[in-house]
């Protein structure tokens, strides 16, 4: 609880300082544009080629937007981890964080906060609802539960990826592009699952469980034929992934030797 209040305070300070720049609204605009530009490739492909069997543009966009929205949520609330290797670790600032009697996780997470990061989940949610409406999926209690579990599970997985890359950064000091695997996760959601090579499907189900938080919930939501329990797996799997990543992060902290001067 104390940590939550502390987190809110840090976020508030960050927010206020960001609003001092007169270009801050341009950043909101910029992220909205990025989000809008992201699926441009997919949309143009569909307009050239038409649907792939039962896989219409709405289907692909739904899977894709689920993955993007949960990523946006993780990024919005835990921005600090995104910047961690470069701005905190390499500069030696991490030493200062360790001296404070507060949890390292909260301090790092709230070290940066950018209001414009919430443009992504907002736009993502709009696309999700548009796709659901286009496929006439009703928003009953079951579906709301599915949607919330998918987004929460997804956010946990992306947080886990941030943690993993931050944890590894203790050893490598420089930010590893490993983190960009999240974008590969978005990219993978552009392939219709029926036509996905087995290797890719296995990898993004069991190793990096992106499909568990995007495709399966989407399939149950719109009735494409996956079993209900698979759709509900999102949250537990996300929690598991998060837990494992937390272990790596802890290991990293224990290994830490100062980089500062």
């Amino acid at each position, binding site marked *: 609880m104390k940590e939550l209040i502390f987190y809110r305070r840090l976020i508030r300070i960050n927010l206020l300082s*960001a609003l001092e*720049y*007169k*270009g*801050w*609204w*341009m*950043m909101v*605009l*910029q992220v909205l*544009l*990025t989000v809008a*530009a992201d699926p*441009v*490739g997919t949309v*143009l*492909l569909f*307009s*050239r*080629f*038409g*649907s*792939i*069997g039962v896989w219409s543009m709405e289907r692909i966009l739904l899977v894709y937007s689920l993955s993007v929205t949960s990523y946006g949520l993780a990024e919005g609330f835990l921005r600090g981890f995104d910047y961690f290797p*470069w701005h905190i670790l390499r500069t030696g600032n991490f030493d200062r964080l360790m001296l404070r009697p507060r949890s390292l996780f909260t301090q790092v997470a709230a070290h940066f906060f950018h209001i414009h990061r919430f443009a992504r989940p907002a736009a993502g949610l709009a696309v999700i609802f548009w796709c659901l409406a286009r496929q006439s999926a009703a928003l009953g209690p079951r579906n709301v539960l599915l949607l919330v579990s998918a987004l929460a599970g997804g956010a946990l997985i992306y947080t886990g990826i941030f943690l993993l890359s931050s944890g590894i950064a203790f050893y*490598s000091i*420089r*930010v*590893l*592009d*490993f983190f*960009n*695997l999240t*974008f*590969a996760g978005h*990219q*993978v959601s*552009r*392939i*219709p699952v029926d*036509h*996905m*090579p087995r290797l*890719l499907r296995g990898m993004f189900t069991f190793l990096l469980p992106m499909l568990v938080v995007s495709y399966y919930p989407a399939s149950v939501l719109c009735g494409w034929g996956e079993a209900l329990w698979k759709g509900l797996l999102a949250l537990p799997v996300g929690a598991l992934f998060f837990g494992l990543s937390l272990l790596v992060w802890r290991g990293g902290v224990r290994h830490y030797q100062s980089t500062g001067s």
Partner: protein
Amino acid sequence: MKRTLRACLSLFRIRAAESLQYRLAALSGAVVSIVWTLIEVTVYIVFYTYAEGRANFSLTLGQVIAYSWVKELLYALLVFNIDDEIRGKIISGDVGVELCRPLDLYWHWFAKSSAGRVGTLTFRSGAVLLAGILIPGQYGMTLPASLPGFLLFLLSVGCAFLLCSAFGALVSAVRLGITWGDGPTYMLILLGHVLSGGYLPLQLWPDFIQTALLYQPFAGMIDIPARLYVGSAAPAEAVPFLLVQIGWSAVFVAVGRLVMSRRLKNVIVQGG
């Protein structure tokens, strides 16, 4: 002039050597690039094999796949991002120190940000190229369409490097307007990203904007070299393409210098 050139050359060497240091980072970048490309290739294969309207296009499947690999090779060159070091200097106020140096700031930063690309370029692109060649069958990279096409491709890559460096320097100059924050910079970068063909080969965009797409500045970053490689543009057509690249580089340099000199007139140096 000669002194500036020599200073910039050594800056270039230092920075390039530094960016070669972090081999692990470069390697992990390469792995991600390869995975990324394979996924993208799969998307194209699925569309070309199963989609309803498989009409005749300006690009065959083989060409699109080769395009994806070439794009990934060139990606390091572009690093659509403002150089971290320069951005840090602007934010921390070290830009004041930079101004004290007896060196033209524009060319100083031009050398630095272009050198930052070299390290990733050699390492990462090397690994990606190796993977592209080794990966068998449909997914791998095909040979260039023709030998003259390939030579022109290399020439065009050189021009693309110039173009991207000039664009990078322009972006840094824009970032000097510190009260605006990162917004305008990132918008420029995004624009370059989409219009260079990084999202989808420009030839697969709607037909009615093709000409405009070809002559806009960003086509020269990825699309033009890639076209020459995959042979969707004949070697005979190459001269205007190269001119487009060089012309836009000159424009970017001119605009970048203009923006920078205007920004420097009332530059804000942060810190205390």
